[in-house]
């Protein structure tokens, strides 16, 4: 069975696959860093007493969570340029998709974590004379961050896997590169298996890192 396939041939295409890996990682990392920033801002909007901040955050989260990533990607790459009269590079569009998409889910993670910190913590901070921002920054946020780590890890893994959908907007990431090679060299089994292994390697590495971080934070 295995013998019928030319596994050594994979090595020949490794540079192209690695190029795909590069874009997958680039988009995941940059997208998630921005996504985390968005998530923090809109998550705090969701717990804010300011009605405007709350409304904007809610609308953003509902739109993103209510539409498929694939639709978001196609809309940002093909529709948005017609509105803003500016053509987006597919990698840039890919980063935007991952950032905006993960941002909405991370916002809900942030909201949940901040809500889970007992009301008494905010009151203790405020009654000492700390203002709202100082209490958030020094008391609520550090505790919430710790609680966010497991769900954030999940979201990172989901978003990394979502980057594979960006092949439809021509981002030269892993599966896009794989399809290109397989279409020209009729080695679908070898190439797609290799691609799958790369995804698995990324997500498993991330899981290990997260478990390490969690353990470090739990021993004080």
């Amino acid at each position, binding site marked *: 069975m295995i013998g019928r396939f030319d596994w050594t041939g994979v090595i020949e295409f490794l540079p192209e696959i690695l190029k795909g890996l590069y874009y997958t990682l680039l988009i995941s990392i940059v997208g998630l860093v921005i996504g985390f920033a968005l998530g923090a801002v809109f998550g705090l909007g969701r717990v804010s007493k300011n009605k405007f901040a709350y409304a904007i955050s809610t609308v953003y989260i509902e739109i993103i969570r209510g539409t498929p990533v694939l639709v978001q990607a196609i809309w940002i790459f093909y529709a948005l340029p017609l509105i803003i009269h500016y053509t987006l590079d597919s990698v840039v569009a890919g980063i935007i998709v991952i950032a905006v998409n993960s941002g909405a889910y991370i916002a809900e993670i942030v909201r949940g974590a901040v809500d889970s910190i007992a009301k008494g913590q905010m*009151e*203790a901070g*405020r*009654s*000492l*004379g700390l203002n709202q921002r100082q209490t958030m920054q*020094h*008391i609520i946020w550090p*505790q919430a961050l710790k609680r966010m780590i497991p769900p954030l890890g999940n979201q990172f893994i989901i978003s990394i896997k979502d980057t594979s959908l960006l092949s439809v907007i021509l981002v030269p990431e892993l599966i896009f590169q794989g399809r290109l090679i397989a279409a020209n060299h009729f080695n679908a089994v070898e190439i797609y298996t290799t691609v799958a292994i790369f995804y698995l390697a990324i997500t498993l590495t991330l899981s290990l890192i997260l478990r390490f971080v969690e353990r470090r934070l739990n021993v004080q």
Partner: protein
Amino acid sequence: MIHVENLCKKFGDLEVLKGINCHIHPQEVVCVIGPSGSGKSTFLRCLNMLETMTSGEIVIDGDHLSDPKTDINAVRTEVGMVFQQFNLFPHKSVVENVMLAPKLVRKLDKGEARKRALALLEKVGISEKADSYPEQLSGGQQQRVAIARSLAMEPKMMLFDEPTSALDPELVGEVLEVMKQLAHEGMTMVVVTHEMGFAREVGDRVLFMDGGIIEEEGDPEQIFKAPKSERTKAFLNKIL
């Protein structure tokens, strides 16, 4: 020092405080007693604006709390608050709990804040736990740290909301001891408590609250021995 005039507080349609009037003088220790739901906590929380009053006026050391121009954070630094559930910051060590507000609000440098914190921990008898975390402390120890944390801001008055109610009986004494010491040093204190012994020994005045008003007030001995109001009598009969 604290003037409360016709203080009313509603939660939606629920009228919790129905016109509270009282004056608390410097260095006075006032104990507030009353049945559950009578509005004791709400009254205390209005005094440092953890709840915003619906109507009336509170004047703290010259600052009118109903005035939107009053800097509420500045007022709160003068009014320490100790909660039933301690509310220590679990992610910070004991000494960091005490140092935090002086560093952020009073802008003390780290060394100075630490020195002050250690002195206060010494005062509440817990300096050997300075580098422990709150979860490693007993309830009584946690509450003493919470008192030290409040004192670190050098407040002019302290509010206590049932500071010993969440404690095992054998730990109540150590917290009351610290509060007694504070009272002797001349701290102005408002204490919601069911510790009648404390109210008698340390209190200058007792307020009995019922149904959102101050039903009766007076000297502790008088309130406990010869209450005038029937409702005070009924309440004291139940708890004594």
